[in-house]
């Protein structure tokens, strides 16, 4: 089974362990992920904030390239990239004039009907059924599944899971032996791209998330977005300062958790690359 793959910029840089874990997990289930040739940045949180046309044209170029390379489906693990690609597809399908002007910008025409899968949709569709037979090390820990904003919202466009109390990550974690906890911050924003310009606000928002998870007994926080990950993990010193205590709960990607359960070596999943040590799992 071959699928198109859009890593996005974070997965090729500071979130390389997310890339490593997705790429390590896929072949275990007989899936080959092929990078979309010459993909470009989706514009992420920056483009839409200052230039709408640019925020549609950047993802459109990648969608058009993927289509030309013959992919029917592409996997987009980064929740922010996934959101931008899905929003661009929706907006352009809704407005023929807009699509024409974007096609002119990117100098390509395209059908704009490729299926875009986030990491959970990818796992649900191609991996979930086969997980039980592959489990060698049950992941027997209490976990807080953190969805963040962009995996489930805007619900009208993304049409995935429940917008207020999503359960897809919880179900996957349960399947590999974990006990997902009930908690209040499943979909609260971590502060996203304010990480550099307003670290103080990220410390507060991410601090509230990490503290609630830790207070309710989570041994790990499970994420599916590199931006959430870096805010909850790399910004831990600022979080600790904000909440007034040292919280050692690690933050790991869903693909790392499943990877561990099916027996992939921790180094291959990039677990050593986190700032908050993962030595209790």
């Amino acid at each position, binding site marked *: 089974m071959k699928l198109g793959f859009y890593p996005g*910029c*974070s997965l*090729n*840089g*500071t979130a*390389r362990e997310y890339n490593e874990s997705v790429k390590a997990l896929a072949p275990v289930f007989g899936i080959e992920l092929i990078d979309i040739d*010459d*993909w*470009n*940045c989706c*514009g*992420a*949180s*920056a*483009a*839409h*904030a*200052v*230039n*709408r*046309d*640019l*925020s549609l*044209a*950047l993802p459109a*170029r990648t969608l058009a390239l993927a289509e030309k390379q013959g992919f029917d489906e592409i996997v987009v693990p980064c929740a922010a990239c996934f959101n931008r690609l899905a929003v661009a597809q929706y907006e352009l399908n809704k407005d023929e004039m807009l699509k024409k002007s974007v096609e*002119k*910008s*990117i*100098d390509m025409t395209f059908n704009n009907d490729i299926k875009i899968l986030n990491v959970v949709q990818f796992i649900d569709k191609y991996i979930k059924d086969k997980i039980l037979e592959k489990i060698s090390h049950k992941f027997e820990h209490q976990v807080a599944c953190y969805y963040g*904003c*962009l995996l489930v*919202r*805007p*619900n*009208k466009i993304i049409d995935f899971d429940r*917008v*207020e109390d999503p359960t897809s990550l919880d179900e996957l974690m349960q399947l590999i032996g974990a006990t997902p906890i009930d908690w209040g911050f499943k*979909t*609260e*924003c971590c*502060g*996203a*791209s*304010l990480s*550099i*310009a*307003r*670290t103080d*606000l990220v410390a507060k*928002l991410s601090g*509230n998330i990490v503290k609630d998870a830790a207070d309710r007994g989570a041994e790990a926080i499970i994420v599916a977005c590199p931006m959430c990950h870096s805010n909850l993990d*790399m910004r831990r010193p600022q979080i600790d300062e904000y909440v007034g205590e040292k919280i050692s709960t690690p933050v790991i990607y869903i693909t790392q958790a499943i990877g561990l359960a099916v027996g992939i070596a921790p180094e291959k999943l990039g677990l*050593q*690359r*986190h*700032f908050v040590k993962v030595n209790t799992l």
Partner: protein
Amino acid sequence: MATNHQISTRIKAATGVDIAMCYQCGKCTAGCVLAGDMDYPSSMIMRMLQTNDEENYRKIISSEAIWLCQNCENCIGRCPKEVDIPKVMDYLRADSVKNKCVSPKAKPILSFYQSFLGAVKTSGRLSEVFMTIGFKLRTLRLWQDINLVPSMLAKGKLKFIPESIKGKRNLKNIFKSTNNK
């Protein structure tokens, strides 16, 4: 603000969002994780836009709030009328830049976006290293996060040679054709 149309008409034309749909229930503000840090919370922004008063509009596009908003989409998720506030925020931010009235308090946030897009414009993919350097030069926060460098290096997370796409000409055209529209 170049046209003579009313504020709500301009917003509707550019975004498709009908500001009048908001009936001030306040759910957007109640659910906004940053409302407490904003000079005008989202429901108040909606109300001020509804007045179609240019003075109010000026206050909004000069506010810090529109830049603090991260488009987490919680507001639209909970809005009983599905008013697309994040889309309006995108419009307000762009108009704030166009009218040169970005709140001084929000300048670092805009600098971040500009550094981000500057790095993407150069090579087609974001180099986190070059974006950070661009941000430091724009804001003169030269020493910020410098303590992270050794551990990021040890974890293999810093890439000093930016990745470049082949379709540079294509990319140049995208930036050129979408600029200042």
